[in-house]
């Protein structure tokens, strides 16, 4: 994406000692002063958002009750899969992870995996069921909910539900780690119908997700870091000046009457033509 014009929104998280939302523009002669930046400011806000969903908590509590467990459920699901991979690798190296393992680390890992998986399923289920119900029952949300939104939520609900049921009915010790091991070693593994459903839904979801709005967890970095907090001033002779000069040299083709046809941005703006197609006053 090309450099864009500044469009920041205060508070900007990296401003130092201005918790009320101030900027370096509050300083006389800011042009000649070194910028005072809090290097951890952005990180703190992101961490608070990722771990607590603070903005939802503050501004939309009713939604937070479900969107928070839903996302925490997703994070834990990813963590659970990572743990399963770690366990499978350990097992292949002769370090079996199970409840009766003599090595306390392996035993602990077994229980951590168990709790992580269970928490992921339960929280994810609460979150998706709650969001689905809210979207169906709350008219303010229903008007803005399209079939695809219901479909995505229902998919995730089934994913979490099948995961939970497979644990409760088929796989109480999370033998899914055996499946991961099978994947690593290319050996077929037999699974029950619930676990199979869960695995299918998870794999297809991973493939489908990049094409959905659910990529907003990546977009959030850009909306904050690259737009809301992008207050980088254009210093004389700096890099930004050069980048913008290149963009200004591009032709543009807007066709309203006040815009000169066939001109570049810089000809339009700094040129000698005024919007009524006459020479600009000198």
């Amino acid at each position: 994406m090309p450099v864009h014009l500044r469009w920041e929104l205060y508070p900007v998280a990296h401003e130092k000692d201005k918790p009320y939302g101030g900027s370096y523009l509050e300083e006389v002669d800011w042009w000649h002063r070194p910028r005072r930046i809090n290097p951890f400011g952005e990180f703190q806000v992101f961490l608070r958002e990722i771990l607590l969903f603070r903005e939802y908590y503050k501004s939309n509590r009713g939604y937070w009750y479900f969107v928070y467990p839903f996302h925490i459920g997703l994070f834990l699901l990813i963590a659970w899969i990572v743990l399963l991979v770690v366990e499978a690798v350990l097992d292949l190296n002769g370090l079996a992870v199970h409840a009766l393992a003599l090595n306390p680390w392996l035993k602990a890992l077994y229980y951590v995996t168990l709790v992580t998986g269970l928490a992921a399923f339960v929280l994810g289920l609460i979150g998706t069921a709650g969001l689905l119900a809210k979207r169906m029952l709350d008219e303010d949300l229903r008007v803005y909910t399209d079939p695809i939104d219901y479909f995505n939520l229902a998919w995730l609900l089934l994913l979490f539900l099948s995961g939970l049921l497979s644990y409760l009915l088929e796989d109480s010790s999370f033998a899914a780690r055996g499946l991961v091991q099978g994947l690593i070693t290319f050996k077929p593994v037999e699974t029950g119908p619930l676990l199979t459903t869960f695995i299918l839904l998870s794999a297809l979801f991973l493939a489908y997700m990049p094409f959905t709005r659910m990529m907003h967890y990546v977009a959030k970095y850009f909306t904050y870091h690259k737009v809301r907090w992008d207050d980088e001033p254009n210093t004389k002779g700096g890099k930004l000046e050069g980048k913008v000069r290149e963009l200004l040299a591009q032709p543009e083709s807007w066709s309203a009457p006040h815009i000169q046809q066939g001109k570049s941005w810089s000809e339009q703006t700094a040129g000698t033509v005024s919007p009524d197609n006459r020479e600009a006053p000198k």
Partner: protein
Amino acid sequence: MKKKISIKDIGRREGPLAEITPEDLVPLPYPYDQPGSEPGIKQLTAEQKQKYESNLDGVSAIGLKRPETREEEEKVVSKFLSGLEKLLSKENNWTFLQPLMLSLENCAKCQTCSDACPIYTESGKMEIYRPTYRLEVLRKIIRKYLKKEGKLLSRFTGSDIELNYTTIARLAELAYRCTLCRRCAQTCPIGIDNGLITHEIRKLFSQELGIAPKEIHQLGTVQQLKTGSSTGTTPKALHSFISFIEGEIEERTGKSIKLPVDKEGADILLMHNTGEFISWPENVAAFAIIFEAAGLDWTLSSKMMGYDAVNYGVWYDDVQFSRIAVRHMQAARDLRVKRVLVGECGHAHKAMLVIGDRLFSGDLNIPRESAIPLLEALVCNNKLKLDPSKNSFPITLHDPCNLVRLSGIVEPQRRILRKICPQFREMEPHGVANYCCGGGSGFAIMDNLNFSDWRSVVSGRMKLRQILNAFQDVISPDIHKYVCAPCSNCKGQIRDLFGYYNVREKCGIHYGGLVELIVNAMVDMKEPFIKWEGIQ
């Protein structure tokens, strides 16, 4: 119960889509808490309705004339689509492409932003004013008409919208029911910016279809580029205003001050909104009194584009915006000043210090600052002899969105008021969480048909509520009260709002700028600088 308006209703040919009734509006505090204490919005005549588009909400902001033939309607639709394609292209919209794409593609439709919007809440939550409404309309049009999703897929993704002339006419009006205050963006957990979406829709209409309110375009940017000022003030007329202000200073203060004009190589070029010279000359006078008392090396410009800091392009058109921004800097360069100082004009701050920042290069990249931190330094470092007891009346501060949320200039004006106004009180909420005056993004100067009623009744309603609440303990009209609004457009809106509700007579509330309060507190002023009778 009213039927909920859906997104696809925007293409419904019969109208209006929604109507503002007094019962829907959120009630105001005392003394406007009795039914019938509000004048209401004027209805358009049958002839006006026939001539101009008003079937969004019975209001016409841009005076869009109805096409006479089907062919004309189709031409508008086709132009709209070509404009939409350009809006999504790097060549034509590099200026805002990344923020636009991020906001278009990632909204989770949680509606967290809705309650942050004063227009939506104060209207009694009218669906068409919901911040996400415009975004959804635009998204659906893109999916269906640019990405060309098939019938089945478009139903699944919810892109079942009809793009006809009615949709476009309503969308054009809808782009002028948001003040671009960006309070919604501030509260969005993902960072979606519905204010930006409004800005981009306005651009599409202006840059491709040539549709924009005449007050902003023909009488605004076009006039400014032709004459030097959006008010039509020529360099010659400016000299008359300056002479008048010098006379006023002498009459009011006994001081003989010659305003420096076109002083080459000065440290500071002070740029005002020219509206100040015409409507609030006391603001220009107060700046001059302060700068002279502090012994600053400063000047005004009477050169083409050097004396009007406004840049209405910032609200609706990147090309017009860039033309004006660049010419402002050319005027500063020609005077060889060390820095440009922006007076009490909010959008000029945003245009010159923030959005325009990356447009300037080489000798046009001249230091630009807000006048407010300098004023703070003069007041708080005791460079001026001030007596706070001269400002012994209740004062509250209105935060212009362009100064606080959009430029981060929040505390300097407060430090001044805390130092020189013993009865200063904040309105709630304030600072970066402030509410717009209701005249933002050009509304303050837009008076087409019944639009000025709308901006008093709907978009200015929250500000009136905040002001009344800040002064409820001293609401009697016998007590003089002052709303400090350091922004010309905000002052214009507050003037109209107060006139519409008769606030001065009913509540004794006046408004004015920041520098007037500083001069009013100056020890060597024999008479009060603020004349309660003279200001509105």
